[in-house]
């Protein structure tokens, strides 16, 4: 039963991936390619965040830092090494690693903090990186960095970036999927529930947390690298925008933290709805409707949208560690 459902998931994903992959080559307006690109980016960010935030329960409010670090790494590499624009996409991979490395370094002391303290220390971290770059002229300082874009039609550039982001997103989702059914993910969930108990269950909590944090920084780093190239103008106000941090968290939780599909659904819905609203309604009212959306959904589905699908999960929860169980009753 498990393996057959696995095969189904696998098949559907491949199909979806292919459909998405050919999307930019139909000559649709570039905007749609860019929009989906943005959606993929947020899916990547939210899904990665979910590793540390959703599974391990460590709400990182500084994830934008990894995104920004990725963007700056790519941009600086491109400027410093005079990379031709095509290498830039590949240079997002080292950008991911830089983000991951930094995550390990800051994760080490920060992950000893719990709950809100962790949230704030990561928030501070993001500010420190942001302000640091702003103050250092060698990194572009307050001016920001300009990148060269290749001599190709805009459609081609967008399509290439689209594919790059698509692959990044797929990889991050695959990582999330693997996590949800692996020993690793199970350990993280135990840590989320009760770290002390997890430790007495022989779970090496400090190491697992660092691993989760580092992994959750890798794809944002890559996404940042690709995004740098999409934007061609990088500024701390843009790539270290606190709003991104907050959005990532909200998207993941809105969809349902600690589930594979939750962050995906959250990111897709929120990005598209927000974009759609700004198109059709007067600005202030659009925002008010957007606000009502959060309230409406959370009142009816306090644990995120994934809860809506939970009926089926309840049956399965016995055989898989994948998704959350039911409501917690009064203990």
């Amino acid at each position, binding site marked *: 039963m498990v393996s057959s459902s696995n095969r189904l998931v696998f098949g559907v994903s491949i199909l979806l991936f292919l459909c998405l992959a050919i999307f930019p080559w139909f000559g649709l307006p*570039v905007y749609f390619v860019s*929009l989906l690109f943005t959606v993929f980016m947020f899916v990547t960010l939210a899904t990665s965040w979910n590793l540390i935030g959703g599974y391990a329960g460590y709400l990182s409010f500084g994830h934008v830092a990894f995104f920004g670090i990725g963007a700056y790494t790519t941009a600086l590499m491109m400027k410093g090494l005079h990379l031709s624009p095509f290498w830039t996409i590949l240079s997002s991979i080292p950008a991911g690693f830089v983000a991951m490395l930094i995550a390990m370094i800051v994760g080490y002391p920060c992950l000893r903090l719990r709950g809100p303290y962790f949230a704030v220390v990561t928030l501070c971290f993001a500010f420190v990186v942001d302000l640091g770059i*702003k*103050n250092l002229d060698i990194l572009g300082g307050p001016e920001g960095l300009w990148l060269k874009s290749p001599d190709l039609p805009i459609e081609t550039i967008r399509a290439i970036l689209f594919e790059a982001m698509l692959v990044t997103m797929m990889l991050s989702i695959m990582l999330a999927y693997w996590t949800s059914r692996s020993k690793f993910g199970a350990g993280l969930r135990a840590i989320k529930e009760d770290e002390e108990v997890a430790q007495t269950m022989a779970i090496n909590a400090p190491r697992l947390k660092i691993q989760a944090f580092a992994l959750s920084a890798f794809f944002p780093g890559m996404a940042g690298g690709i995004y740098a190239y999409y934007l*061609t*103008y990088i*500024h701390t*106000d843009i790539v270290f925008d606190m*709003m991104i941090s907050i959005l990532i968290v909200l998207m993941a939780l809105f969809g349902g933290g600690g589930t594979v599909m939750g962050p995906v659904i959250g990111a897709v819905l929120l990005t598209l709805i927000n974009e759609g609203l*700004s198109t059709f309604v007067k600005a202030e009212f659009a925002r008010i409707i957007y606000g009502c959306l959060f309230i409406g959904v959370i009142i009816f589905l306090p644990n995120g949208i994934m809860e809506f699908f939970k009926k089926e999960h309840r049956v399965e929860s016995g055989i898989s560690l994948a998704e959350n169980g039911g409501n917690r009753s009064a203990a």
Partner: protein
Amino acid sequence: HPAYAEDKPIVIGGSLPLTGKFAETAKWIEKGMKFWADEVNAKGGILGRKVEFIIYDDESDAKKAVTFAEKAITVDKVDLLFGGYPGTAARAVMPVAEKHKYVYVSMGGHMKSFQQGYTYSFGGPPLMGEWWYEGFFQYMKAMPADQRPKRAAVYTMNNPIGASASSTLAGWLQKLGIEMVINEKYNLPLPDATPLIVKSKQMNTDILFSNGFFADGVMTLRAAKALDYRPKVIVQAIGSVIPAWVKELGKDGDYIFSGTALHNKLNYPGNDKLNAYIKKKFGLPGYPVYFGFGYAWMQTLSQGVEGAKSLDQTKIRDWLKSNTVNNIAGPMSFDEKGLPAPINFCTQIINGQVELIWPKEVRTAEPVYPRPAWK
């Protein structure tokens, strides 16, 4: 062209930060643009076609400004792209406009944006940080050397606008024999301005450059008053150009020097009309700067269209590069970077009015110098 007259309206699209951090200014720009459109439509439109806007709200997020620019260009297939605000958004949109080959008339932010080799971007007029104090220093230069201030304190917010505004300061100060005693940057938000003023006071500076936005500008000014710091001159970058400065600060806001790229008392055609409208509609004595910007950018763009007699972006660009545009900021012809000749107006707030004091030909009031004591 009778065939045109029956045509669909000309659609002009893009985004403005209608909500979020920059909403205040963007709303004025939007009003300026709309006023322009009403006026044009009343006269029968451009090329015989009416004009119409699609304005998206980018929520003060430069990333969104980019996607909305692409949306306007590729989905709505707008005929013209309108200019963006603030500088970071304009910077991010410029490469997009270039790639899509759309003429983009905006504030641009500062010189660096125009040095990236973009051919479709114009500052018409630009809000050019590097030129901001040009007029002020010209005025200082014309003053007898012994009357000039001697010691300068410079505080600059650490962002592109602050950086560009302060970039020419050192050179000018040296030229005028003013010693730059303090030169500090600060990151926004400024938590407290008291220490800045204490330091300026201790160092006996007699000219204060406050290169900041509204919030930090107000704090600096209030701290100066509270500590009774009396420099001969206080110069403000951006903070003092919005109507709220005069409205909220009243008397305390007086005597601030600043620069501008256009002004409601300039003797160029159109300004009177705008002022009359603003007075009637909003009860303000003259139109706010950003209202003027919104209007002027549209003027530039439409003159390009009318000059090129076509909506072909490249033709519009080429026309703009080789002809002179007349907008409310005066006549301007654009160089290869898309910039007009440096603009060097200097303003001072006197009795709650933003007066032009330099160049001398356009002066609307005598400058108050040195600054009188606080009331």
